[in-house]
């Protein structure tokens, strides 16, 4: 359809249609601006400058190719004759769009370059900051490759090592070993460079360039790249040499004897405990307990200063002779020393060490112009680890030493289990017991005696225990015989009586008729002592205990002689209302005359007679017949018979059926603190109701 538009048709003008096209296309521009743009560019087309119109549209962001299609169509349909604007418009559009694209691409490239430079500058500044942090940090920092090459080290680290960078760079981290490194340090290091761990910390010594040692608190970290692959290791270290030396000095002071410089008692026990806890099974160790033979004479005659000089000299000789062999020499106190053999192949090794001790002290020691032949005694113990505790080992060595002393000194004695057992009580008692009593190391436990007829509580026996600081809790069997021998039993026995009566009186006050009878053991020495009668009287008066609630147990083997002084003492006790019984009846060569002469109320049958009722062997059968006979004996004399060592219900039943009155043993209760007995006491109420 050619030709100009018909005059009569209400057809919109070209500028109107042109502007409508722009509007329909859409733009962020305000509609008024689109109208203005439309009429301006329509005028340009009409005035033959279609290329400029295209340029203006592109600059106003009308850049969609769809827009070009519509514009070209409109120009063609409008039917311009000369010049035809379609070509000019399309060419102008293309030229402008190309220009615009190039300009914009250049501007965004420039912006990107600027930004990149800015980032690089910032990176550089940041790097410089990190460099400054690295260089001026107060802690030492070193960077190494994964194969251990030292790549960089900061100023603090160089100062710590007293080195220049060139001294360290290129060296291997693994060259920096020190004999005092713990094995874990290098294990951790291997794991770190293998990427198995990300960091570790430890205290580690290094050799400085001048050969001195610097102690450091070291932290090593693994540095990974963006993909998590290990790349570098960074070590940060703090100089802790001063702190370490101080610690070392304090530790040395705490573990060494200030006079001789030898490890002290605490250090020795620490080492021994560690050895016994960590040595592989089957390995053996040895102890030589050393005591100077004539030290006291030196001290008393030449004075303490000379005594100290002597100890210093002895310490020097012992450590000079034994430390090179790998043994530990410690001073336990006074003139007592100990040698610890950590790896012993047998008794001969321990004996060899003891001989070395003796020969080291053989030459007289010269002090202040005196030639002092001191000599020593040595107790030797050699045992497999795992068979003995540290305390028991030292006690055994000490007792073995005691035997060497008793034999006249200047010799060694080898540990022997049997002889040791005999001397243990005597020795420990004589040395420590008075002090132990003073320090309150003794305490009482109570064991129930129960009626076999119904199991109800009949009496409690007070049993003394010794909480020995080194040996642990000792039972009466372990120390009473020795106490008896030395006479220390008298104050101890008095103390036991006081304590037990006070406890029984407390029960009497609180439980009234339910309170049980109290049995207290009396040794022969106590029985013979005139003081006993007075003690019993005083204690009953002081505690308010009903005398009939107190029963004294005499050990039959206490060997009472006829017309013994003790008979009068015991008769006096009984006259006060206290009762008597014989303990462990049947264990000694029973003097049946006692049954006639002593004012007895009861017998306690030794557990040796109480066998297993199920046993079929002949000895067991005889035992039971003896028990049966004793039951008749006690019955006919009007004595209460108590069986000791009752452990099973079957035994209790057999004893009951034979007519035995009371039982004592684990079946009814072990020795325990007094509070533990109170439930049994209260249970008597139920039994008495039934």
């Amino acid at each position, binding site marked *: 359809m050619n030709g100009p538009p018909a005059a009569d048709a209400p057809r919109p003008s070209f500028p109107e249609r042109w502007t409508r096209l722009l509007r329909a296309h*859409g*733009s*962020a*521009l*305000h*509609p008024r601006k689109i109208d203005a743009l439309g009429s301006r560019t329509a005028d340009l087309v009409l005035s033959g400058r279609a290329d400029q119109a295209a340029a203006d549209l592109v600059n106003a*962001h009308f*850049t*969609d190719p769809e827009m070009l299609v519509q514009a070209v169509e409109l120009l063609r349909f409008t039917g311009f004759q000369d010049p035809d604007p379609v070509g000019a418009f399309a060419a102008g559009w293309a030229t402008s769009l190309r220009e*615009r*694209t190039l300009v*914009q*691409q250049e*501007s*965004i490239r*420039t*912006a*990107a370059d*600027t*930004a*990149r430079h*800015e*980032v690089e500058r*910032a*990176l550089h500044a*940041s790097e410089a*900051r990190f460099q400054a942090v690295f260089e001026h940090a107060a802690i030492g920092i070193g960077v190494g490759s994964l194969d251990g090459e030292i790549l960089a080290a900061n100023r603090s680290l160089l100062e710590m090592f007293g080195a220049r960078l060139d001294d360290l760079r290129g060296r291997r981290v693994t060259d920096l070993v020190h004999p005092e490194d713990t094995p874990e340090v290098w294990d951790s290091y291997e794991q770190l460079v293998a990427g198995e761990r990300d960091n570790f910390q430890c205290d580690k010594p290094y050799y400085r360039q001048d050969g001195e040692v610097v102690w450091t608190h070291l932290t090593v970290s693994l540095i990974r790249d963006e993909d998590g692959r290990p790349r570098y290791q960074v070590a940060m270290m703090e100089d802790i040499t001063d702190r370490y030396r101080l610690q070392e000095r304090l530790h040395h002071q705490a573990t060494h004897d200030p006079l001789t410089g030898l490890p002290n008692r605490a250090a020795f026990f620490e080492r021994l405990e560690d050895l016994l806890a960590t040595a592989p099974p089957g390995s053996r160790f040895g102890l030589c307990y050393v005591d100077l033979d004539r030290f006291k004479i030196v001290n008393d005659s030449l004075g303490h200063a000379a005594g100290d000089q002597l100890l210093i000299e002895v310490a020097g000789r012992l450590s000079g002779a034994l430390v090179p062999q790998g043994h530990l020499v410690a001073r336990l106190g006074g003139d007592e020393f100990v040698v610890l053999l950590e790896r012993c192949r047998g008794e001969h090794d321990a004996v060899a060490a003891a001989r070395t001790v003796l020969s080291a002290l053989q030459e007289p020691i010269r002090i202040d112009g005196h030639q002092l032949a001191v000599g020593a005694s040595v107790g030797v113990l050699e045992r497999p680890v795992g068979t003995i505790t540290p305390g028991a080992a030292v006690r055994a060595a000490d007792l073995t030493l005691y035997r060497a002393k008793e034999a006249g000194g200047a010799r060694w004695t080898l540990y022997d289990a049997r002889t040791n057992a005999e001397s243990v009580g005597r020795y420990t008692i004589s040395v420590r017991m008075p002090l132990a009593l003073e320090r309150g190391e003794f305490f009482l436990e109570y064991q129930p005696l129960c009626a076999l007829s119904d199991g109800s509580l009949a009496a409690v026996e007070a049993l003394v225990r010794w909480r020995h600081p080194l040996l642990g809790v000792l039972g009466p069997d372990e120390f009473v015989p020795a106490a008896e021998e030395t006479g220390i039993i008298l104050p101890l026995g008095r103390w036991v009586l006081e304590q037990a009566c006070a406890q029984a009186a407390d029960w009497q006050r609180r439980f009234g008729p339910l309170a049980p009878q109290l049995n207290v053991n009396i040794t022969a020495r106590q029985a013979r002592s005139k003081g006993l009668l007075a003690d019993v009287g005083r204690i009953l008066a002081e505690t308010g205990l009903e005398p009939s609630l107190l029963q004294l147990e005499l050990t039959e083997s206490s060997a009472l002689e006829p017309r013994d002084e003790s008979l009068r003492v015991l008769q006096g006790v009984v006259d006060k209302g206290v009762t008597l019984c014989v303990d462990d009846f049947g264990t000694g060569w029973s003097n049946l005359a006692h049954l006639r002469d002593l004012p007895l109320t009861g017998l306690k049958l030794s557990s040796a007679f109480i066998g297993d009722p199920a046993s079929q062997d002949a000895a067991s059968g005889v035992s039971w017949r003896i028990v049966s006979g004793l039951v008749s004996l006690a019955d006919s004399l009007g004595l209460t018979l108590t069986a000791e060592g009752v452990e099973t219900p079957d035994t209790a039943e057999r004893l009951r059926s034979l007519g035995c009155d009371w039982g004592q043993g684990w079946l009814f209760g072990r020795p325990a603190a007094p509070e533990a007995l109170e439930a049994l006491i209260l249970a008597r109420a139920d039994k008495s109701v039934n």
Partner: protein
Amino acid sequence: MHGQRWSPSWIDFETPNAARVYDYYLGGSHNFEADRQMARRAVEIWPDLPKIMQANRAFLRRSVQYLAGEGFTRFLDIGSGIPTVGPVHEIAREVQPEARVVYVDRDPVAVAHSLAMLSDDPLSRVVHADLTDPEELLAQPDVAALLDGGAPVALLLVAVLHFVPDEAQPHRLVARLRDALPPGSALVLCHACREGRPDQVGPHQDIYARTRTPLTMRGCEEIAAFFDGFRLVDPGVVYLTQWRPDSPDAVGPAPERLAGLVGVGRLESEQAPP
């Protein structure tokens, strides 16, 4: 040390960037091949995108014109990108010839481009800062100077909050900025909305997930909540073309298809009511 950048931001031309992709949607050439590849893929899935960006740009123009008409002379445009098509200072100055604009973006290329473009404009400033660190943003001298002096400031958060993930607590960020505004200030907001085109949420977010600016389209209520503390200007929170259209027919059919929710809110002025 506050505001000191410890490590510089990174420039990566291999990864598409939201500002340059936006420029491509609008027909510009301020972009690189990576941006164009992503934009082409996005348009293939959602052909309305160029129209949406145009509508977004038109809303920015109408809201700035409106506020300039209300007497605003200070504008803080956060997430300004590459503002070649109708930049805020040009629009505002048609009404307020002395209008001051501070453009803020976190993309160093957008910042460098804006600086080059505005180098001879004495009343415009360009600041490199990140919306997700409002303390540092507010501490920038040009931002602080704009907020200082008590004159109301128009805070523009146009098509930027949907680039702030939930972990960055966008509502807390907006509240922090609100508290820094002088009395009588305004918030201009445009945010991609899930309800407009629920079918597009998944695919569109997937495309942006691989960029340094992942997209989070939010629900209407979440978007309206950004105006907490503001009094909404008529017509409230509406779809892009529904906000004060230039003419009734400019709204177009199905405005929700454009998926952008917009609104303008005002803070109370300090003057006590009579």
